[in-house]
């Protein structure tokens, strides 16, 4: 579904990604693990066309997207839940939820999103999206891209800074959307959480993919993983 090869990315003079190769197959949940600064978020932004300069190849459903603008990539069917959630303070909760345009049929309805995240329904009338708690903002950030009909979701650290009970709820949500046929590329710092949702894990170091570990081999690869992540 998503095939990335030789992806390079720059912010101004600094060269962040040095030839990333990875693949996400339809219906999979795949994580990107790695230390801070390894290039995980830049990889997500590069897929979405949100970096100033990128080269290489990002194929989505067989079509090359490397020369596309980010709005065209969105219309091709990729949606992002960005780092730090990207909730808009000048928009109400409902406006935040309905902001991303629907690009294809088959997305969740607002009611289905409320079933998935009952808290959001209670807070729907909140006038400023940023008045929600961190967990609620995260649910809103995930919920709003489920509406769009995009089947490929990029989730950038959805559990960062959240209480364990909320992290569990996000985990249930990711498994639920996988069951509904969504494909997910997930950036995670916490591999224990990643192990509960993912099929495969890519490990990043210094702007490159250095390893790929299928989830069933995660336990036996613990030593290697500890070394990669420095935990």
């Amino acid at each position, binding site marked *: 579904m998503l095939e990335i090869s030789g992806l390079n990315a720059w912010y101004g003079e600094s060269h962040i990604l040095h030839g990333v190769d990875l693949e996400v197959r339809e219906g999979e949940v795949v994580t990107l693990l790695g230390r801070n600064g390894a290039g995980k978020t830049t990889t997500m932004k590069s897929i*979405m*066309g*949100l970096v100033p300069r990128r080269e290489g190849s990002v194929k989505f459903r067989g079509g090359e997207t490397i020369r596309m*603008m*980010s*709005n065209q*990539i*969105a*219309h091709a069917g990729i*949606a*992002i839940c*960005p780092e730090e959630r*990207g909730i*808009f*303070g*000048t*928009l109400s909760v409902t*406006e935040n939820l*309905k*902001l*991303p*345009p629907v*690009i294809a049929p088959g997305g969740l309805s607002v009611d289905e999103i409320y079933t998935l995240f009952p808290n959001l329904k209670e807070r729907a009338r909140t006038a400023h999206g940023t008045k929600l708690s961190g967990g609620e903002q995260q649910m809103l950030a995930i919920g709003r*891209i489920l509406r*769009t009909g995009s089947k490929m979701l990029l989730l950038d650290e959805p559990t960062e800074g959240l209480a364990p009970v909320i992290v569990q709820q996000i985990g249930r949500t990711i498994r639920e959307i996988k069951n509904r046929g969504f494909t997910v590329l997930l950036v995670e710092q916490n591999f224990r959480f990643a192990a509960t949702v993912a099929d495969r894990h890519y490990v990043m170091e210094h702007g490159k993919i250095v390893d790929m570990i299928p989830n069933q081999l995660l336990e036996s690869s613990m030593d290697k993983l500890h070394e990669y992540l420095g935990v």
Partner: protein
Amino acid sequence: MIMIFGIPGPLLFGQLLLGLINGAFYAMLSLGLAVIFGMLNIINFAHGALFMMGSFAAWMLLNYVGIGYFPSLILAPLLVGIIGVVLEKLVISRLYKLDHLYGLLLTFGMSLVIEGLFRNGYGSSGLPYRIPDILQGAVNLGFMYMPIYRGWVVVAALVVCLATWAIIEKTSLGATLRAATENAPLVQAFGVNVPRLVTLTFGGGVALAAFAGVLAAPIYSVNPNMGDNFINTVFAVVVIGGMGSIMGSIISGFGLGVIEGLTKVFYPQASATVVFLVMVIILMVKPRGLFGKTA
């Protein structure tokens, strides 16, 4: 004759009405500036020139094509708005990555060029534009005579201002605009063509200025410098209301018009400076303006 604070009633109300009318223009112009600043981050010094073009467009439509006042209220903003879209696409869009100052310089230069062109073609003495028949005359309100056209200007300006506010605060298009003001790259990554939205926003702000220009045509003579009289005050209004705030622009526009009018009655010498005095005081108390967002 009724006296209020030692001032004859008709004089007081007359100046109050004049203040409201000026306030109506301040509000419409600062609204356009606020919308453009919020979305484009450009301080549009050409706004006065575009207001003037609205007036001229109405005059040209009448004298060259025979199209009257009411159709011009729609057509002139449309035409000038299209010119605004072209200007944004050709020139202004090249400045978004640069400092504010460049946008200010560019639009200031644009306004000089536009005004110069009109001065070349039409002189600077001003052209008359007749009040449409149906809005001729005055009504007796009991405490004063009100020229019907002036009442119409205040009502039309209020309606346009509130409609603009409603579009921005209450519709999904407005929500997209507000979101793009906050974080344009993310809105674009959701699939919105943000550059096109920016162009249309500029066109909309320009159309508002041109609409004000058409309303102004029968009151002030249509001349190349008519925007200059307003634009300095309008910038003060925008600052007082809070840069980029929609409701702030409307309220402080009308409010400052009235304050200016009252100053003309009680202390005429200060009428030209009172707006800036208010600006200084407001900025001392609230540095981001009355309705400015705190960081």
